[in-house]
């Protein structure tokens, strides 16, 4: 008996210990956050004080240089800054045109080593770069390009028209992905002389300057002509031979890249002597390093909630500008009553875009235009108005007999309650929040919305099965967004709204408007830039009237950088600040 008692006692004791352990374990387990979070939070408060004296001196210098006449800066030997360190997330491989990984910042960094025939200026318009003069034949098929004669590859070989022809021929054979898409429609290239080349197209393509000439890096014939498998080719030297302002000197996979300025760059001496890209595993790591100024910039857009926090740090500034991505609400024409234009208009009137931007993006977005095109685009039709007007929304709904006859707060259409499912991909937190606000705002005008957060693939399958609109669609309302390239070329707009699936392969709402189709066809029939500009403005009005989707906003690009270290970044509309112009003196920018 005694031993049994003892056993029970010991057991009880162990249980006590167990409970204590449980207490500790349960108390610790769910909050892994505080420990790591404490550090950056504390640093954020302390760092500026420690950093301030160091930070002030260079910032004064930068201000002075800005005020002095530009020519002097160019003539002055030496760099504004010897070294600039930027954080990247993810490795970009050897960063040549066939190995770089991401569209942003991979392509952007690639283009610091290489040049394209045209380049984007600050407002996002293509301007001649390697080209001095150009003309397009009457039939719209042949571009005659005169090239600069003062450009050389950074191994000393002169750059000539042969390199241009070689690039287009080589990409036709070897390119996949972006550059293959860019040059689509290329037929042949003819070298007229060393500094003149003619590019022939299969069909007229007025967007070709923007799509191909301003996007494709020209590669040196003497380096690549012997390379048969460019994706896997191993060069003996990591140095990528380009014409650009920076040369890759050192690459440690998964660690860093070191670029050195090309002091003989044709457009002008780069402003930063050495550019170091440091690879981080995730955003949190990059932000922590940024806060302590271990890096001077993050080569990636920062989330809206970080804008205020980071800009409060002494010496840090935020470069803000337009990017052409969108957040939008899709309405399926196959689901009644979204086939009625009044209903679609009412939905647009009921949504308070400013409120959404202030709440979800904390102000860091531009309100959507009903005509699809970003207000900062030179093709924007400023006649288009969009307003938040719930009374008008109610009028429109009632004009087509959609009333709340049973007083339940939800309107009915042909006896059925106006209740819809709004799907949104579960991986996109901001979109989910927008969906919640849409639900709240549409409830105000008597439209019931149930937000469903679904897996990415489910969501795509419901909105755009097989990425082919001829398979139809099975959503009622959906959050959606097009990435910047869709809008960067404004003349692609018919793809979104044309009722013919061949002309409108991105028409995910099922829009079928005679007006839109007619204007789009007229636009496509002409090569005259003025006529096309007139038509694209007309098309925006037609889209705004038809309202096949609601453009909620264009999220702004926000980049955090230590302006106390270097304050000369150039924000290219639609492309952001990671570009070669950011590291060239202002006099050298087109």
């Amino acid at each position: 008996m005694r031993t049994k008692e003892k056993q029970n006692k010991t057991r009880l004791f162990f249980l006590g210990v167990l409970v204590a352990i449980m207490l500790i374990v349960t108390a610790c387990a769910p909050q892994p956050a505080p420990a790591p979070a404490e550090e950056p939070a504390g640093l954020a408060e302390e760092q500026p004080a420690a950093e301030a004296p160091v930070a002030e001196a260079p910032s004064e210098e930068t201000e002075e240089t800005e005020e002095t006449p530009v020519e002097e800066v160019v003539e002055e030997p030496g760099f504004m800054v010897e070294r600039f360190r930027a954080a990247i997330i993810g490795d970009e491989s050897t960063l040549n045109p066939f190995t770089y990984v991401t569209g942003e910042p991979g392509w952007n960094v690639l283009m610091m080593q290489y040049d394209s025939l045209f380049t984007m200026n600050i407002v996002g318009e293509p301007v001649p770069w390697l080209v001095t003069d150009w003309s397009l034949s009457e039939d719209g098929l042949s571009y005659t390009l005169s090239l600069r004669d003062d450009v050389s590859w950074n191994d000393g070989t002169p750059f000539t028209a042969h390199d241009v022809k070689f690039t287009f021929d080589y990409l036709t054979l070897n390119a996949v992905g972006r550059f293959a898409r860019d040059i689509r429609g290329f037929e042949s290239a003819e070298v007229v002389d060393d500094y003149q080349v003619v590019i022939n197209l299969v069909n007229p393509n007025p967007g070709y300057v923007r799509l191909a000439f301003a996007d494709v890096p020209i590669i040196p014939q003497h380096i690549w002509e012997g390379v048969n498998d460019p994706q896997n080719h191993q060069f003996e030297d990591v140095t990528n031979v380009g014409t650009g302002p920076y040369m890759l000197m050192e690459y440690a996979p998964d660690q860093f890249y070191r670029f050195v300025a090309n002091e003989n760059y044709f457009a002008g001496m780069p402003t930063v002597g050495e550019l170091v890209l440091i690879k981080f595993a995730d955003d949190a790591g990059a932000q922590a390093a940024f806060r302590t100024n271990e890096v001077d910039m993050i080569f990636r857009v920062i989330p809206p909630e970080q804008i205020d926090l980071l800009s409060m740090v002494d010496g840090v500034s935020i470069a803000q500008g337009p990017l052409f991505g969108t957040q939008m609400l899709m309405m399926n024409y196959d689901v009644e009553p979204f086939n009625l234009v009044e209903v679609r208009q009412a939905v647009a009137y009921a949504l308070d875009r400013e409120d959404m931007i202030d709440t979800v993006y904390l102000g860091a977005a531009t309100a959507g235009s009903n005509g699809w095109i970003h207000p900062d685009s030179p093709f924007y039709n400023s006649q288009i108005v969009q307003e938040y007007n719930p009374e008008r929304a109610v009028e429109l709904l009632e004009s087509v007999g959609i009333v709340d006859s049973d007083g339940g707060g939800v309107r009915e259409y042909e006896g059925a309650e106006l209740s819809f499912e709004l799907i949104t991909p579960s991986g996109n937190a901001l979109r989910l929040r927008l969906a919640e606000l849409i639900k709240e705002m549409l409830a105000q005008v008597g439209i019931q919305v149930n937000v469903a957060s679904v897996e990415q693939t489910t969501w795509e399958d419901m909105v755009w099965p097989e990425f082919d609109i001829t398979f139809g669609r099975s959503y009622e309302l959906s959050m959606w967004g097009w990435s910047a390239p869709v809008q960067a070329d404004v003349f692609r707009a018919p793809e979104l709204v044309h009722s013919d699936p061949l002309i409108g392969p991105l028409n995910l709402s099922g829009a079928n408007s005679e007006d839109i189709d007619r204007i789009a066809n007229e636009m496509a029939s002409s090569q005259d830039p003025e006529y096309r500009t007139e038509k694209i403005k007309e098309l925006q009005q037609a889209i705004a009237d038809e309202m096949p989707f609601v453009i909620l906003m264009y999220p702004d690009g926000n980049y955090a950088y230590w302006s106390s270290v270097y304050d000369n970044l150039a924000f290219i509309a639609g492309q952001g600040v990671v570009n070669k112009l950011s590291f060239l003196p202002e006099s050298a920018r087109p």
Partner: protein
Amino acid sequence: MSTLTSVQVEKTRHEDKPVRRRFNPSTFAGWMGGVIIVGLILVAIFAKQLSPYDPAERVGRPFQPPSAEHLLGTNDIGQDILSELIYGSRVSLTIGIVASLVTMGIGTTVGLLAGYFPKRLGKVLMRIVDLVLIVPFLPLLILLAAYLGRSLFNTVMIIGVLSWAGTARVIRSHVLTIVQQDYVLASRTIGAGDLHIITMHILPQVLLLAVGQFVQATSGAILLEASLSFLGLGDPLQKSWGTVLYWAQVRGVFLTPAWRWWVLPAGLLISLAALGFALLGFSLEQVINPRLRNSH
């Protein structure tokens, strides 16, 4: 040796004064657990009266620090965090309790059948139990949650389906001993069917045991729900403690001072609930489980 004597002394005292109970840490823990749970359940029931705002309504600027109006500040779209947590107790506790009910249901059924038919069916069932026990739990949980999609129902089912094996084992071993009891034998000899014996004689015996298992499982289920929601594998539109943490994570709060009023309270509540059920569970097990039962 000293332990032995102290046991002896206590034993004598206990026998001398049977009316006055000695202090039992297990009972105390049980009471503590009970108080915590009752407290949280009251909060859940009276969430409407207790919370200062409707948690679904945007009542202020986003990302506000604590103030007199918003004791725990506001979240990323300006909803009151305190109200979110108060209402969150409903979802978190419900999921915890329902998921462990599922656990108990499956575990008890399997345990009963395996114990009552130990030969063929029992062997098959116990091998399944072994399988469920050895499969790495958390990765499978995350995989299933990602595969099945996000909803309250899925969260409940996933937790339930993956955590019943332990319960089944405990129940089975208890059933194995009950089946050997004379009254079961007697019942069988007078021609009672299996169903009758299971429902009338065995189930009532194991039910108490199952309740103990249920309380313990709830503690685990609450933690699991929070983990899944935090990872973004729960339904982000349901306000639970785990989703409050999820939104803190996706909106970068962990890197800012806001973790103190956004992350910490949610974490503490989850710990508190898990602790409450764990304490009660341990205490109940002391009373219920025959192998641990005090023989005083």
